[in-house]
């Protein structure tokens, strides 16, 4: 943050384009929180780039007064990788959805994460294809009745966080479109992380898949069906009345009496092993409360730093490249 620069407000990050999502779509809230986070973290308009694929969520860059690219289906991580490798000083955000990131773009999703490219990926998970009007997606539950699955989906769903963790992600988090405070906090954490950060946001598509995340949002249900992760804190939920503990390798729900947290699973987002994060990602509704917050936040060298370090090292060791020297390397002969 540079103190001399004029302080930008959230509104300064809005472009002049009309937002065209369906009224009531969860995307609106994510857009609003993103602008807030950029303003609060002192981001600049010109050094911020949003890159998206295809889908409802991927219209996002058009609405931001930053640099942006609405690319092709599933490939946003690849565009971001090329940009970040050559312009590591830029703040690069990838905006994607469940179909974009996990179906057509599954390969790129996995590879940007394992390379630990320093970009932030926000995955809007609405468990449906919205823009193409309602086909099931890779995160739709088995049995989901959609336009393309009149007798119910037979595909087994993917879990984006489990995939990311298995692909050696250094930052993995989950938040919810309408949980404004939590979303702001989570996006802020992601923006501060050096390396690939993945934030899965439960996003409501009120047109084609309305209410699928209600259990995690509803006033009466959310305490029972989510558990908020805090680094170094035991996993307790349902107003402090329940907790998670490990029974061998498996989590189980136990009653918490008199705030006695003895024996409960304590969250450690910095654990060098990704096993805890993976275990947490496997806790699904309705058997378990679903964890919300930062699952994993560890440090590892980023790809963009390393590719640029190699160039710097080569220049230091071999001196700046010289064409004449290059062309004359090896055997040459002269014709008079």
């Amino acid at each position, binding site marked *: 943050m540079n103190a001399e620069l004029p302080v930008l407000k959230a509104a300064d990050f809005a472009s002049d384009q009309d937002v065209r999502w369906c009224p009531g779509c969860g995307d609106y809230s994510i857009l609003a929180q993103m602008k807030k986070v950029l303003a609060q973290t002192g981001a600049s308009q010109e050094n911020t780039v949003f890159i998206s694929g295809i889908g409802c969520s991927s219209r996002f860059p058009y609405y931001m007064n930053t640099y942006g690219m*609405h690319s092709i289906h599933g490939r946003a991580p690849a565009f971001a990788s090329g940009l970040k490798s050559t312009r590591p000083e830029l703040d690069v955000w990838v905006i994607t959805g469940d179909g974009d990131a996990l179906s057509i773009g599954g390969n790129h999703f996995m590879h940007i994460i394992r390379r630990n490219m320093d970009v932030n990926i926000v995955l809007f998970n609405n468990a449906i294809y919205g823009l193409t009007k309602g086909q099931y997606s890779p995160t739709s539950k088995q049995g989901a009745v959609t336009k393309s699955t009149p007798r119910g989906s037979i595909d087994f769903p993917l879990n984006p966080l489990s995939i990311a963790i298995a692909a050696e992600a250094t930052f993995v988090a989950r938040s919810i479109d309408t949980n404004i405070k939590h979303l702001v906090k989570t996006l802020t954490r992601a923006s501060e992380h050096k390396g690939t950060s993945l934030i899965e946001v439960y996003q409501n598509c009120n047109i084609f898949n309305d209410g699928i995340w209600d259990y995690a949002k509803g006033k009466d249900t959310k305490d029972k069906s989510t558990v908020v992760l805090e680094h170094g804190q035991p996993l307790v939920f349902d107003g402090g009345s329940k907790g998670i503990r490990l029974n061998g390798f498996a989590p189980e729900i136990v009653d918490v009496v008199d705030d006695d947290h003895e024996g409960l699973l304590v969250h450690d987002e910095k654990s060098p092993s990704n096993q805890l994060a993976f275990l947490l990602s496997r806790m699904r509704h309705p058997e378990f409360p679903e964890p919300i917050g930062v699952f994993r936040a560890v440090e590892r060298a980023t790809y963009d730093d390393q590719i640029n370090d190699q160039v710097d090292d080569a220049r230091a060791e071999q001196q700046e490249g010289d064409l004449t020297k290059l062309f004359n390397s090896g*055997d040459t002969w002269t014709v008079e």
Partner: protein
Amino acid sequence: MTTVTDQFLPPQKPSEAVSGVTVRLAGDSGDGMQLLGTQLTNTSALAGNDVATFPDFPAEIRAPVGTRAGVSGFQVQFSAEQIFTPGDGVDALVVMNPAALVTNIGDLKKSGILIINSDSFGPKDLKLAKLDTNPLEDGTIEPYRSIKVSMSKMTLAAVEETGLSTKFAGRCKNFFAMGLVFWLYGRDVEPTLRFIEKKFSKKPEVAEANRRALKAGWNYGETTEDFASTYQVPKAELTPGTYRNVMGNQALAWGLVAASKLSKKELFLGSYPITPASDILHELSKHKNFGVRTFQAEDEIAAICSAIGAAFGGAMALTTSSGPGIALKGEGLGLALMLELPMLIVDVQRGGPSTGLPTKTEQSDLMMMMYGRNGESPLPIIAARSPSDCFMTAIEAWRVAVKFMTPVIIMSDGYIANGAEPWRIPDVSELPEIKVTHPAGAVEGEEFLPYSRNEDLARPWAVPGTPGLMHRVGGLEKQDGTGNVSYDPDNHQKMVQTRAEKVARVADFVDPIEVEGSDSGTLLISWGGTYGACHTAMKQAVAEGVSVGHVHCRWVSPFPANLGDVIAKYDRVLVAELNSGQLLTLLKSTYLVDAKGLNKVKGKPFQVSEVVDALKAISK
């Protein structure tokens, strides 16, 4: 252990002067034929000959030993005259086993010399080559001057003192063959001795064994009665200058590095390994001190998309591939042209369709490069004509890309990618400067229009990090000027036409096409890697009294501005290409000309004689 380095006595036998020789070396993939060929090429070039090569190897890394599928060949022509092809008929064929003999003997001239490693013609070797009779005895080799050499045994004897195991000692036999061939053509062994020294610096015993094998082969030539004389190929008359040998992929990589320097842009390559393009990735990855960044992507799609991302950020971005990979990049290419960002797409063609013939050459991707994208999506396409020409092709492509703000396709092929020829090293100060400009920031009182255009119809290349020029690009149709999403019918038509017009204008910027040979009669039209065969054929036909002119399309999209006028001057038009008539179709539809095609899809380049025959036939 004494070393043999200084004991190569010059040939004592009489020597016969010849103007040029075509030698083919053929053996098993593991026999080191490519290495032998490369050494012969280098030493011939250093001797002042003009050289052209044609390596021909199987797609399998280690095809079963001794089988026909595993035969690896390397053809080199070295000449006292300027040459443009690796030669039609072979003057000297070296075969290391029966499979190599039967698959190559058809190309040996009747007057040619056949040098055979006679130690590898046992029953097992014949069985591996699926032969019922021994070609050394069944009359196969009768028409030729064949020389049977006990190479394996003599190599073992020569390297015995070094203490290498029989297995490793046997591997030195390519150096024995090399020694013999070097002796036969009076080639200097020094460059090869230097090569051995460097390559095996960590294994001095192997270096010594190879030196001994080389020496044994050389001495064998001198002592055997099979050779009465050696052959001398005098120096070629080449344009004065300093020369080196280059292979096509290497020259292309160097041209790209040069273009990046000339435009003061750091180079970013997004690529996925594929034959025969991978060597460009390998070569570029060595030049990090030029600011080159290479990104080995997870797939072909990510390769082009990463390059587009880098281009958006202001880098000199490119992706390299071959047919199957380019097919996967189609959607990315469409986006790149929609974004109107400068970048390069390199297609080193191979035999298709599908996986096709990975290590063989073909020119069958032209239509894919022209039209293989959804929607109206024209792009400029330049094709290299020879290994050394790849250098200037890369520079020219990048000049066009940045001037017109467009992706540019560079086409090469397996033949020129792996072929080698002498290259006159350019004076760096004479290379064209490549001007690139980026708008520096917002102009007071003016709205920034990312899709406004200059006189070349190029839009401004405003890169992230520039204050005040924030804008969004994407694959949805753009509103003229603002670049905002637009579904307006008239706007769409205008944008489609503008993008096409921009590509068309490249024709006025690049050089007009030049006619070589006669200015009436038959016009021979070629593009890409067939230049050498076509140029040589035209010269031969003219020498034989046939009226033939030749034009070679360096740019195949757009066509050179004067091509239509040139075509109109001739009575007949022959379009020679290594496909079923792709350029022919384009020329017919563009110029309504009744052209005929000379087409070949055998995974092999044209023989000069094939083109000459076709020229004669059509000119009758």
